[in-house]
């Protein structure tokens, strides 16, 4: 058995990783909740954002500074891609949207592969190996920062969705497209805004990941696989579900890494995934059909 200090440290570390999972999952579940499609380009978008942060770092800009520019940039890109590529190409059919996002992911990954080759790269930030001392445990500085930024983004997103007219319009479209159109909400615009918000969340995730992680043209998929689990666990389309699910999965991964061995950390995640599908397929916060 491990001492309580080690277990607590594992839980805290898991919480820090989980915050990034939560961010990637919120983006996925938000798009699912409003457009009712799984965005297959999610992982590729995350990868692209990580390369964008990498390029910024090469130009001398720290990822934590670059996020200020990259989040709005990815919002605009996401908006444009949904409004002028995915929307028109789908002709109103949900399954077409699915295929278009799948196609997009292939294009993005291969453009990145052609541009950056398949090498795995990482960056070396000055705070990369510093840590925060809580007395009984040292937490790695990059992850603590990632956690803090993720909390801020989650809070901003919550304020947007719960308190503003734009957020209410997004929730209205998610619940009832026809009802939303009839109060004069511009549904295609809301679709694009939602897609843009998802991409912006991924840009933030990319910028907080890069200081402690690596990047290659397929790196985003690992995160998206976890995000799918989180979204199913939290309930498809539920933003609070994605936040809590993300933190929970982070802890599960960290603990199963502790007990089963580091390389088997993800084992626990997929056990949970199978259990949720068996016992509660609508997820913790999902609507009962």
């Amino acid at each position, binding site marked *: 058995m491990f001492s309580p200090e080690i277990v607590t440290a594992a839980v805290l570390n898991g919480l820090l990783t989980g915050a990034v999972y939560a961010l990637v999952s919120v983006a996925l579940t938000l798009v699912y909740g409003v457009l009712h499609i799984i965005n297959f380009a999610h992982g590729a978008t995350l990868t692209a954002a990580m390369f964008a942060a990498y390029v910024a770092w090469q130009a001398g800009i720290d990822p934590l500074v670059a996020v200020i520019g990259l989040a709005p940039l990815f919002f605009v890109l996401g908006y444009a891609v949904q409004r002028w590529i995915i929307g028109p190409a789908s002709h109103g059919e949900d399954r077409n949207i699915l295929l278009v996002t799948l196609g997009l992911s292939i294009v993005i990954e291969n453009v990145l592969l052609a541009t950056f080759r398949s090498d795995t790269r990482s960056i070396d930030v000055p705070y990369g190996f510093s840590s925060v001392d809580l007395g009984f445990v040292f937490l790695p500085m990059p992850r603590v920062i990632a956690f803090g930024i993720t909390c801020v983004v989650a809070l901003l997103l919550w304020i947007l969705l719960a308190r503003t007219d734009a957020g209410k319009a997004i*929730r209205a479209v998610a619940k009832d497209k026809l009802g939303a159109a009839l109060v004069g909400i511009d549904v295609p615009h809301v679709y694009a805004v939602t897609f843009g918000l998802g991409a912006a969340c991924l840009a933030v995730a990319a910028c907080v990941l890069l200081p402690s992680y690596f990047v290659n043209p397929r790196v985003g998929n690992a995160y998206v696989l976890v995000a799918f689990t989180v979204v199913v666990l939290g309930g498809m389309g539920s933003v609070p579900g994605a936040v809590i699910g993300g933190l929970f999965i982070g802890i599960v991964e960290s603990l199963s890494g502790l007990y089963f061995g580091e390389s088997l950390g993800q084992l626990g995640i997929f056990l949970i995934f199978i259990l949720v599908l068996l016992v509660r397929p609508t997820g913790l916060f999902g609507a009962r059909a």
Partner: protein
Amino acid sequence: MAEPLLSIRGLVAGYGGTEVLRGLDLDVAPGEIVAVLGSNGVGKTTLNKALSGVIPVRGGEIRLEGKRIDGSPSKDIVEAGLIHVPEGRRIFPDMTVLENLELGSYRRGRPRRAQNLERVFATFPRLLERRTQRAGTLSGGEQQMLAIGRGMMAEPRLLILDEPSLGLSPLLVEEMFALVQRLNAEGLAILLVEQNVMQSLALANRAHVLENGRFVLSGRGADLAADPELEKAYLGL
């Protein structure tokens, strides 16, 4: 008749390969109630959806206060003041009553949101009592009130009511028609689309009976109510 508020000429609309509406003419004058009657599946809802820009218009033209609105996206039609309270209410169940009403003025009427809220709450005191409650927890009648209240928040020039009495108890149906009359008495023009023939005719200045995508019978409400053709037309005999 005064200059029509809504004027429809030769309206054709449908889905896929099917034409549901095959050339409709209809006018609503300011302050008028015009009823469109017909049984299930004759195209009443298609008419409303075409009017509010939710489905494309395939032929003919629609004018609101003289301005063409066919082919416009629904947000512009709402902006012009044609407000459609849909069949099945289509309220947002996870949001509070207040949030639903606020969304009613998303596109139109926003500068006077506070006054309009007061007006809606004066009309529906029940909604005031339940303003912090989730809309999905309201009874059917209350949800219908909320749907109409949400429509009123947009300061309609013309209000389309699609089956407002559907699924309500007989007592509530009476209340609903009394409400329609009251809104109209305040000067609101209403296009009332209903299955409930006799009660609609009692209110309507004019009415049209829709069958297989065409108006088979049109006239003043009172005249139609007494017309033996009505039963034949309505029952499709």
